[in-house]
């Protein structure tokens, strides 16, 4: 693998070079949320399209609020337009731009989520390819950046990742001290980007320093859970009715914040946005936490209680994704924990399952004595 070093202070110049190469560049920046001039406005780290390296926050802060999902799987997009003419309908394709894109400053957890989304939207899933996703995916290059300061909600090391993982990356950057970055070319797309940046890249990287830095950051993660037994425990359908689901899920209010924040959540809705005799059929993010999500026309609802909807979400992360799509459902980014208004914590479920899996007879005895 090709490696090099880069001065951290040259990251802005890297963005400038990529912009000058006619690439669309998306980088973390501090962007005002809410009303820009209003009294409640607050600057939040956000992935946003940039036209220069000015003000970039690559390698700063922790996780941008929005993740990279929306740049591959649009929050809202027209699938086609239609127009009614008497008894006839005309379907009009919608032109989408798929510019060659580089997303820089992607954290390892977000980068690891891309393969998961791809396993749902590509033709590997039942032979049906979502062209909007795959067109964007094939034109997007990811420059990732090892974490330096995980926070209390991070738990990537609990789901077989690490703060310096290069999984899903094309070009991977890791701080190795003295304002230097170790650069790893991971893929062909990464090699192409490295070529654009060649004037700023120097010699060879420092593999030993990179590994040392990664290990040091891993030590900082405080939220450690054992996810190894979870899938097997979920595969036992008897555990689908475990008392844990209702007890832990009691406080969930079904707002869906966790699903919109989650880098691997892929649920969407399809509706017609109609105006007079024409309109668009659109696809947009939806959430399995909403009570009407699975509601039948008859009024029957297979997930009629909120705890069942959260049970589905947990199963999706630790059983459905790995079993059906053969990719991880959870990358340990902690966004769902930070976003939850009632402090519902997915790692609490993980810990409980690990405990139940390790002590099956004890748990059974507890239930019998109740």
């Amino acid at each position, binding site marked *: 693998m090709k490696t090099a070093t880069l001065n951290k202070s040259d990251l802005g110049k890297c963005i400038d070079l990529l912009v000058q190469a006619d690439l669309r560049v998306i980088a973390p920046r501090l962007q005002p949320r809410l009303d820009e001039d209003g009294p409640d406005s607050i600057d939040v780290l956000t992935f946003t399209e940039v036209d220069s390296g000015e003000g970039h926050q690559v390698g700063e802060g922790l996780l941008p609020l929005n993740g990279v999902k929306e740049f591959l799987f649009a929050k809202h997009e027209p699938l086609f337009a239609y127009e009614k003419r008497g008894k006839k309908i005309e379907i009009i394709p919608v032109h989408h731009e798929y510019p060659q894109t580089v997303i820089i400053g992607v954290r390892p957890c977000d980068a690891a989520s891309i393969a998961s989304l791809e396993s749902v939207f590509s033709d590997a899933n039942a032979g049906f390819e979502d062209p909007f996703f795959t067109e964007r995916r094939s034109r997007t290059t990811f420059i990732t950046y090892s974490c330096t300061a995980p926070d209390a909600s991070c738990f990537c090391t609990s789901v077989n990742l690490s703060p310096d993982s290069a999984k899903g990356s094309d070009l991977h950057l890791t701080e190795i001290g003295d304002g230097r970055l170790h650069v790893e070319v991971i893929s062909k797309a990464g090699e192409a980007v490295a070529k654009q940046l060649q004037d700023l890249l120097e010699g060879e990287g420092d593999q030993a320093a990179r590994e040392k830095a990664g290990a040091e950051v891993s030590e900082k993660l405080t939220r450690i859970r054992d996810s190894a037994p979870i899938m097997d425990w979920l595969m036992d359908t008897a555990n689908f009715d475990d008392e844990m689901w209702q007890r832990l899920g009691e406080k969930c209010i079904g707002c869906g914040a966790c699903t919109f924040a989650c880098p691997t959540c892929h649920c969407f809705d399809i509706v*017609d946005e109609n105006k007079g005799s024409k309109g668009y059929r659109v696809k947009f993010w*939806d959430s399995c936490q909403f009570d009407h999500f*699975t509601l039948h026309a008859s009024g029957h609802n297979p997930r009629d209680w909120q705890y069942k909807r959260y049970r589905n979400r947990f199963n999706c992360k630790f059983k*459905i994704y790995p079993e059906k799509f053969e990719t991880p459902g959870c990358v340990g980014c902690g966004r769902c924990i930070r976003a939850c208004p009632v402090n519902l914590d997915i790692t609490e479920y993980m810990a409980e399952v690990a405990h139940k899996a390790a002590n099956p007879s004890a748990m059974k005895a507890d239930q019998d004595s109740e």
Partner: protein
Amino acid sequence: MSNIYQPDLMTITKIIQEAPGIKTFHLKFQDENVASNFSFQTGQFGEYSAFGAGESTFCIASSPTRPDHIECCFREVGKVTTALANLTEGDTIGFRGPYGNTFPLDDWRGKNLIFIGGGIALPPLRSVIWNCLDLREQDGRFGHVSIVYGARSVQDLVYKREIEEWSQMENVTMVKTVDPGGETDDWDGHIGFVPHVLENDFKPDPENTVAIVCGPPIMIKFTFEALERLGFKQEQLVTTLENRMKCGLGKCGRCNIGSTYVCIDGPVFTATELAALPQEF
């Protein structure tokens, strides 16, 4: 790259009012290339669109042995089905499909078949009933065919003319029932819920027989239980599920029962397969 979400256009060539709020559409593709390349197998479903309102999921209610047109049958209950119901003959709808798996007709060779349905659940069975009757006519590949069908009231029965036709056919036993209170003075069928009539009046012999059940989840549950008390084994019981869907393509995340997506792994399941799933349907 082709757009998997874009429907083909079909013309409504005929509309039949089956029962109050329930209509059948006969549909033909407008593009001849699409029409000549289209084929489906019984049990599969489609996404039907009323442009301006959106898409709804229904089975294909006609048999692949009668390929002149396809049919769907739906109850007017929500935004899309209301918009569909407001269309008239000659109007255009959108169709995506066929999606999903199919009834395992090859496994049923030489066997007696019992089709059991309730209310608006006859349309999926109607496709496979005609398919089996037509194939039996050709080469005698199936044994005796029985149809047990019930609705809330006499007026809620769908395919009334075909119920009469099946009643007249040789080697077909037609058992019809309506819920207590739903009968009329001249009603000549049973009175009682489908599982009850099945178990106490019809009492089918499980020997060399497959039972195909379609209805709301609660009806499937009680009918399977009744059949098991009659001696049917789980592998002799087949059903088709109708979970809410949007894409039909295994992507939108709505129809799953555990890791099983009804849209791509179903909608047809045996009772053995259902028993292995989390009980959430």
